[in-house]
């Protein structure tokens, strides 16, 4: 046996890993920790329907943990004439300074420094802003010393001259876009314990649109998918389960959250949001390596997913509000080359398509 031990020693010693991704591991660790906190606080989510109102009441969905009552001073400032190249914004969290800058001209990723920590790539490939969604926000969270913070960062539509951020502790932040390498950006940092109630983007002639983000019950960061035009009625807030069961010995539950943030579907810690005002047709919209979740037209009663090996899985189409959803546990490998067929209540096939491949 000792020969085998030595052989293995030699073979494995020949492996030269790359540099330790310390900051990335810490970032993931913080998310794990925050999910635990959120999971403890969120508890069971009851289906709650709210009526649409004409004037936006800028509050969050009922699933959220209560924000902290202790006020932490937060400020944000645009870069000045003598600021370093690439700087997007800077400010204070409590008494600690922070800044966000574009990491490199080609990447459009941002780098956050301050509050006792340093994060790179805190925004990845956020989409392009449009007239309908004037800021394409992404974010990251980290709990450096002394105050855990979220960093929210986005590209800005060309007409936007400023944005107003309302935080759940009453803080109002005004963001001014900074141009770097032909793109315009805004960024702000906020304590993790404080939620983002809304962001309103302004042009030189007034408000363009307001986003009320979705705060995933088991997640970390808000999702800004839907933007409401001035005067637009708030969509009803509605939460409902559209799938549940046991997979590989573990319970699972798929939940739809409808509201001013658009539609967000969650299974475990996986969240998929879409903000389109048009009701989606039948198809899959997201999932993970363990789940597939999707939408269905009114006429659809159930779907049959046919796997590559010919076996089938049935998913019921369940209405939450006016929209039908479906979800099934499917491993990543099962998703490869899988196809779905949607049936109406008399068993007639009404639509079909494919699920993503590996």
């Amino acid at each position, binding site marked *: 046996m000792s020969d085998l031990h030595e052989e293995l020693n030699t073979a*494995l010693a020949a492996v030269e890993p790359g540099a330790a991704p310390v900051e990335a*591991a810490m970032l993931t660790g913080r998310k794990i920790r925050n999910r635990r906190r959120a999971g403890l606080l969120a508890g069971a989510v009851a289906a709650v329907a709210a009526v649409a109102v004409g004037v936006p009441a800028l509050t969050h969905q009922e699933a959220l943990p209560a924000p902290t009552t202790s006020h932490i001073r937060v400020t944000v400032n645009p870069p000045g004439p003598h600021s370093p190249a690439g700087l997007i914004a800077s400010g204070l969290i409590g008494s600690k300074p922070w800044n966000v800058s574009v990491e490199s001209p080609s990447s459009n990723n941002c780098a956050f420094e301050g509050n006792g920590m340093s994060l790179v790539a805190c925004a990845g490939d956020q989409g392009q802003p449009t007239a309908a969604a004037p800021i394409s926000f992404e974010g990251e969270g980290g709990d450096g010393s002394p105050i855990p913070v979220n960093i929210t960062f986005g590209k800005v539509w060309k007409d936007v001259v400023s944005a107003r951020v309302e935080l759940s502790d009453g803080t109002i932040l005004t963001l001014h876009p900074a141009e770097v390498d032909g793109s315009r950006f805004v960024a702000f940092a906020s304590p993790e314990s404080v939620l983002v109630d809304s962001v309103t983007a302004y042009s030189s002639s007034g408000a363009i649109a307001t986003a009320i983000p979705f705060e995933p019950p088991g997640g970390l960061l808000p999702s800004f998918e839907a933007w409401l035009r001035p005067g637009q009625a708030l969509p009803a807030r509605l939460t409902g389960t559209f799938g549940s069961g046991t997979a590989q010995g573990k319970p699972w539950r798929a939940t739809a959250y409808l509201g001013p943030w658009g539609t967000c579907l969650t299974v475990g810690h996986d969240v998929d949001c879409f903000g389109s005002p048009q009701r989606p047709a039948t198809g899959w919209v997201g999932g993970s390596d363990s789940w597939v979740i999707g939408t269905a037209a009114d006429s659809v009663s159930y779907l049959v997913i046919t796997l590559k090996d010919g076996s089938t899985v049935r998913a019921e189409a369940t209405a939450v509000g006016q929209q039908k959803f479906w979800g099934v546990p499917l491993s990543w490998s099962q998703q490869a080359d899988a196809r779905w067929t949607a049936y109406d209540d008399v068993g007639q096939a009404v639509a079909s398509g494919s699920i993503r491949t590996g």
Partner: protein
Amino acid sequence: MSAESDEEFREFMRGRWPAMVRLAYGLTGDLGHAEDVAQAAFARAYASWSRVARTGDPDAYVRRIVINENNSRFRRRRVTESLVDAVPEPSGPRSADAADALGDSEALMRALRRLGPRQRAVVVLRFWMDMSEAETAAALDCSVGTVKSQASRALAALRGSAELMEGELQ
């Protein structure tokens, strides 16, 4: 978490990263997966770092998570597990005088990769990590009898592998 404990974690991870990746590489046979598994393990350790650090043996904690992560990975992706002939090249530079030894090592790694994931894990834990049969069984969440039988079959397969020179394994 304080800046001091963050720095403590950074130092720990930088120091133990190569060893954990090598362990994960032995278990997975793929350097990319190995780095993913090791990174996930360190992330989980960081999520509980104040508690992990207090155990006095964070190395054992992370090692255990690496093994668990690998077990989970195979549970999740068993269907996609496939055997390939080519072993990924190590990402770092090799010294020229190690070339001969590496030739034999790569043959061993190829043979190891042809084992099933459970047998490969048994080989790495029993014969590289020098875990006892009971420790290996606990780590892999199986019986001691399974460890014995898997080890026996794994060694037989390694001995019978054309990749390995006759007499290398005693």
